[in-house]
């Protein structure tokens, strides 16, 4: 991994969430003035997303159990904002060695870097269900952004379905905000949670918070079902979602009426920039997905490129703060700068504990790969291109495409607006099941620019 001598002139951090902010803070304390580029208009990232200017909800309302951490992170950022080169509302849409391609308000600029620290976060990990293309189907993260940013609910009556901690967090945030939550439907059975207890106890406080969220839901008389199997999002093309149908742990069919559904199975890392930079990814058995290959402190396989936070390994916001500090220290070490070894050990130790917890979560709320296998042929896998599971399976059976990029070329799954963010992992499971090979063997979709859709009106401005 990275050992060659680095120049310290231009240090660029991408992403102003918990990892990016703690990284910037640590570098600033060591006398460096990083450039911090963020796609959002305000700092905080996803979990500590700040509301737009002019909104006045207080921290307890906005962040609930996470209010103190949110306030602390925002205050830290406000302190360092004047001393770093902060560029909000700026998308890094591509990169070449030593140079980032950025777009802000329709203007393209390049930013040179000697060292690049990717704190690009995560998005929802999704598993298709028949009918999920109907209007009113959102991801959990999307549902949370609507509430946090704009103080709106995604519907009058909302079902939360999927698995993972975010399912309970967002549902309880909706309850707290006064929204009508019709049900919380979790695919993981209680037994998995019990088995995962030893690992989850690595962070008893967080485990307690999770239980408290669940208690709040029960207290509010929200129906919570564990071990369900999703069957269908009900509704029609013209009026959108009208309900969901699942089978319960006891095998009974349950229909819940609603006009919106939020889906999600924990998170997947945003690795496109790292992929475009040539960083190696590795298959993580525990979560059954491709993650960035980084060393303990956040060095990628490419010299001068570092990563921290959920963008490299899904461990949550607390871990992202530690990883942000740690990756800054890795860079400082590579620059032969003096280090506070004690502080570094603290971060490493904290992260090791959180990694145990991560494994516990993966065990308690497993990615439901079997659902991909059971998906009816008519179910849409790729919502951008409207490609069904049957069409995808036919590229395997009739055209012999047993690899993700080949299947994409033949079927268009992953070729649309989202560039595979929402469908590629599930698509890989469908391919693997149809081909009778492991999901690791079918590979991962190669990253291609632009990282997000780029307006044809984008114009170059002279630096």
């Amino acid at each position, binding site marked *: 991994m990275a050992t060659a001598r680095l120049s310290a002139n231009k240090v660029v951090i991408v992403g102003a969430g918990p990892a990016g902010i703690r990284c910037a803070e640590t570098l600033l304390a060591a006398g460096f003035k990083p450039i911090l580029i963020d796609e959002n208009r305000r700092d905080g990232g996803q979990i500590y997303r700040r509301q737009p200017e002019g909104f006045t909800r207080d921290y307890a309302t906005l962040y609930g159990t996470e209010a103190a951490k949110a306030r602390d992170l925002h205050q830290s950022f406000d302190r360092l904002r004047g001393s770093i080169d902060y560029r909000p509302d700026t998308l890094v849409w*591509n990169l*070449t060695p030593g140079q980032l*391609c950025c777009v802000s308000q329709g203007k*393209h600029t*390049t930013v040179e870097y000697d060292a690049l620290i990717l704190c690009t976060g995560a998005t929802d990990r999704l598993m298709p269900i028949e009918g999920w293309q109907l209007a009113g189907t959102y991801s959990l993260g999307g549902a949370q952004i609507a509430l946090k940013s704009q103080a709106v609910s995604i519907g009058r009556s909302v079902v939360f379905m999927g698995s993972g901690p975010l399912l309970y967090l967002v549902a309880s945030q909706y309850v707290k905000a006064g929204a009508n939550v019709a049900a919380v439907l979790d695919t993981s059975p209680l037994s998995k949670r019990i088995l995962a207890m030893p690992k989850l106890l690595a962070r008893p406080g967080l485990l307690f918070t999770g239980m408290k969220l669940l208690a709040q839901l029960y207290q509010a008389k929200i129906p919570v079902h564990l071990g369900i199997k999703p069957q269908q999002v009900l509704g029609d093309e013209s009026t959108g979602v009208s309900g969901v149908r699942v089978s319960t742990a006891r095998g009974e069919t349950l229909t819940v009426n609603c006009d919106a559904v939020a889906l999600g199975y924990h998170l997947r890392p945003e690795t496109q920039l790292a992929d*475009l930079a040539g960083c190696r990814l590795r298959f993580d058995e525990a979560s059954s997905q491709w993650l960035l290959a980084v060393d303990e402190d956040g060095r990628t396989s490419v010299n001068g490129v570092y990563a921290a936070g959920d963008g490299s390994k899904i461990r949550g916001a607390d871990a992202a703060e530690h990883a942000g500090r740690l990756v800054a220290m890795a860079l400082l070490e590579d620059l032969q700068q003096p280090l506070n070894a004690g502080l570094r050990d603290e971060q490493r130790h904290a992260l090791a504990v959180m990694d145990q917890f991560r494994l516990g979560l993966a065990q308690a709320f497993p990615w439901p790969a079997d659902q991909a296998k059971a998906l009816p042929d008519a179910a849409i896998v790729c919502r951008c*291109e409207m490609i069904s599971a049957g069409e995808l399976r036919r590229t395997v059976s009739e*055209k*012999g495409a047993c*690899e993700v990029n*080949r299947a994409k*070329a*033949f079927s268009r799954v992953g*070729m*649309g*607006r989202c*560039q595979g963010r929402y469908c590629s992992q599930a698509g890989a499971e469908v391919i693997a099941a149809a081909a009778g090979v492991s999901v690791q063997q079918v590979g991962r979709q190669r990253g*291609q*620019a*632009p990282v997000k*859709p*780029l*307006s*044809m*009106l*984008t*114009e*170059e401005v002279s630096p």
Partner: protein
Amino acid sequence: MTVHKADVVIVGGGLMGSAAAFFLRQRGQSVILLERDQIGQYASGVNFGNVRRQGRFLGQLALANRSWALWKRLPELIDDDLEFIASGHMRVCYREDEIPELEAYAAAPEAAQLDLKIFRGAELHARFPFLGPDVKGGSYAPHDGHANPRLAAPAFARAARRLGARIEERTEVAEVQKVGGEFSVTTTDGRQFNAAQLLITAGAWGQKLSAQFGEPVPLDTHGPQMAVTEPVPYALPTVIGVYTKIPEEVIYFRQIPRGNIVIGGGYRSKPDMLNRRAYVEPRSILNQMEQMRRLLPGVGNLNIIRVWSGIEGYLPDSLPVMGPSGTVDGLFYAFGFCGHGFQLGPGVGDVMAELISTGSTSTSIEPFSINRFALSAEQRSKAS
């Protein structure tokens, strides 16, 4: 070691090799096709998808016409239409003094089958009202069109396999030699494939093999620069490309029926030949946006959702290497199609199959002979 034998071994599973395998089987030859990676992975699967004859070197139109006739018959030939649409192709220019050049091309006897029609002024903008005001003239080819390159080579390979061809993917050639009357191809996994005739269709890697037989060619590699927008209602059936002598003005686009607009042209990138990966240069995308806004002003409301590249082989005279070896009996080449091989693919496969099976071909391919790069005896003695 088991030796696998066939009448013809083909090295390189792009569109040329796959189509040749298919047509050789149709002629009853036994065929083994060796592909180092996946069928159609580098140039064949990533190009723009132009099924265009107009604008080609006039001496290539006989071959292009033969290929066009095959494009029309694809469903009956290979049971797949490759999304081919004979939607028309329009070659436009930004300068009045370029119109006579388009007219001269249209008037050439070789281009007779293309039925080209020249548009200019008010008639041009009435017929193509979406074109920008800078467009001064254009040559319309009603029978040309476009198809989906991602599907082409794999569909030919599947059809060849159905006819009994043996297709070996992920099979890299380590060594090729001719021993006695037979070619012997050894692969890196230790297998051996023998045949009396050998066809090299290795695209950007073609010259590595031709050089082994003493016929090096000055082949260069480039990555095409492609982009695609999000889908919008299907309104632009005609493929449109700019005719110009200024490289950054070169731009072409086509809309597919599902709505996306595919864009290509402008700068080319240098592929990473070690890792066999080509990237799109950011400046290419920005240039394409600027050029597209000039050519098709309404495009400004759209987003680019994806860009891609590939690895293509180019020769200095922009013509391919195609035909028999100048030095070794039974050795044939079809590579280095300089970024415009897609339309020719079925025709190249057909012609090479005819040439290999019968010893001659009814379509002239003389201008593409590898002999044009052969060193004269005098040059050879100087070089040594």
